[in-house]
């Protein structure tokens, strides 16, 4: 239907090409934006060995981002929005059963921006870095000046202390990732 309309329209336009009907300037204002894609709903931590090796697991976060030219920036953070049920005697992010117990993570392979620095400790009260320093004028996909990768990705590798103090059982926490762009 659309093709038919276009075909019909092009004929008259060509026939009267010498007639100026006026010009129109189309302006497109793109605002900084960031989106997380294909987000995994769950991640199960596990471990091998018998001598209380830490539990580990990893997820890949996909994202698209656009930052303001010259002055913009972007980042991805995470925060434990729901802790393990600490009263159950298992792991607890907010009040670790034993000093040193922690849910930590590292970030690898960010295709736009920088991986978080070193080992980060997840928190229930503050958002911690996953991807930082997404530069001004960045955009996802299509190649220069945007990223080649589309979507952009970063891997987050979690480690949870296996404290003998934890009671046996299954425990869950919720992590919220947030992407921001200016």
């Amino acid at each position: 239907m659309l093709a038919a309309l276009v075909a019909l329209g092009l004929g008259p336009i060509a026939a009267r090409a010498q007639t100026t009907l006026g010009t129109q300037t189309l302006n497109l204002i793109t605002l900084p934006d960031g989106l997380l894609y294909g987000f995994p709903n769950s991640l199960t931590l596990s471990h091998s060995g018998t001598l209380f090796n830490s539990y580990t697991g990893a997820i890949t976060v996909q994202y698209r981002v656009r930052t303001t030219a010259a002055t913009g920036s972007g980042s991805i953070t995470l925060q434990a929005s729901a802790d393990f049920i600490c009263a159950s005697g298992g792991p607890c992010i907010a009040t670790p059963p034993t000093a040193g117990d922690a849910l930590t993570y590292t970030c690898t392979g960010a295709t736009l921006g920088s991986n978080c620095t070193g080992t980060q400790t997840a928190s229930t009260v503050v958002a911690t870095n996953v991807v930082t320093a997404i530069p001004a004028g960045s955009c996802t996909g299509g190649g220069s000046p945007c990223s080649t990768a589309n979507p952009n990705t970063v891997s987050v590798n979690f480690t949870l202390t296996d404290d003998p103090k934890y009671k046996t059982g299954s425990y869950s926490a919720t992590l919220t990732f947030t992407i921001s762009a200016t």
Partner: protein
Amino acid sequence: MIKKFLILSILATIAIVLTSSQANAQLGSGTGTTTLSVTVGAEAGLTVAATSNLTSVGTNFTSFTGSTALTYYLRTTQSTGSGSITLKVTTDFAPAGGPSVGTPPTAGDALTYTSSGSAPGNNGTGAVMAFTNVTASTTAQTNVATFGADNRSLFAGNSESVAWTLTNDPKYKTGTYSATVTFTISAS
């Protein structure tokens, strides 16, 4: 007519662009949540000194004595779990002519031990940490400690010790003899 068509075309284009924009917006979000799950199971481990020397103090064939220190890490299942530390002489004394656990040179010769230690620091209910005058064996596991349900050690581990006594039989030829004792910890 042409102008009307162009206006319609532009409107159609704008409509297509807007529709496309909405479709993209549905594919992602500024935030995402994931549920992090972990299943904590029963497990156990221990560390033990590589070598324990037995010595005899005095000259009247007093028994050889010595001790082995262990650090154990343990978690047993709530309500139904249990655990243990056992030992077995997996390699008898060698060379020949000295003591032997499997075939004592004289009836009554034996390697015996008494265990003692601290109960699991994060709940030691039901744990038995001491066994007295147990005769070590080359064929059977013997108890060093046993654990109850929901026993949990400290993060740094808890300690257990085995005090050895080996008969000093005059029949033994002089020399240095070694045996290997294997400790096993288990938890369910």
